[in-house]
């Protein structure tokens, strides 16, 4: 199972990570977006983080599936 991870804006700079592929750690529990963040970044997902799977907003504990694109980003500031 391979997941494509993307970080944007301040997260990308702070964690020095733009985009990466990750294979979730083996285990019985369903793989969640927040668990992938912990695995890739090495610390818990910030409370303010927004999460999208395949370009749709999801909750941090949403399950991910093989081939998904999982994006993490700070609060948005457009407009």
């Amino acid at each position, binding site marked *: 199972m391979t997941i494509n991870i*993307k970080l*944007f*804006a*301040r997260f990308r*700079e702070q964690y020095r990570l733009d985009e990466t592929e990750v294979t979730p750690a083996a285990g019985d529990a369903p793989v969640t977006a927040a668990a992938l963040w912990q695995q890739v970044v090495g610390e818990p997902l910030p409370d303010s983080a*927004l999460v*999208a799977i395949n*370009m749709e*907003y999801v909750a941090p504990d949403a399950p991910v599936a093989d081939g998904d694109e999982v*994006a993490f*980003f*700070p*609060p*948005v*500031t*457009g*407009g």
Partner: protein
Amino acid sequence: MHVEVREGPLSPWQELADFEAGLPGGKSGATASFVGSMRDFNEGESVVAMFLEHYPGMTDKFLRRIATEAAERWPLDALFLVHRVGEIRPADAIVVIGVWSAHRRDAFEACRYLIEELKSRAPFWKRETRPDGPHWVAGNTPG
């Protein structure tokens, strides 16, 4: 309906005029519009430049979704929404929204809905250049 994420200049009034010229006249009694522009100050500090990052694919999809939602929720005749990305200079327009409807309440409410959804949920991030260097803007003020 015209929805666009644009890297390049934006002339809000000219583009609203051009878009309107392509609509059937005499139908819409009310047009509400909003233009968001880059200020040359923020939190008391001067801002000399700005870079607007987005999430290619998701940003466009999100803007199309809120435009479709607005058109389902209010009886609209036409909708125009363009948001810039990339390098922005002070006083440049960042976003322009125009909503045409038979009635002003619908036009205003749909226009306000679009900018509030965009500000709170559309994947854009502003990095301001201030005299002491670049700063990611922390969050938008509530509408």
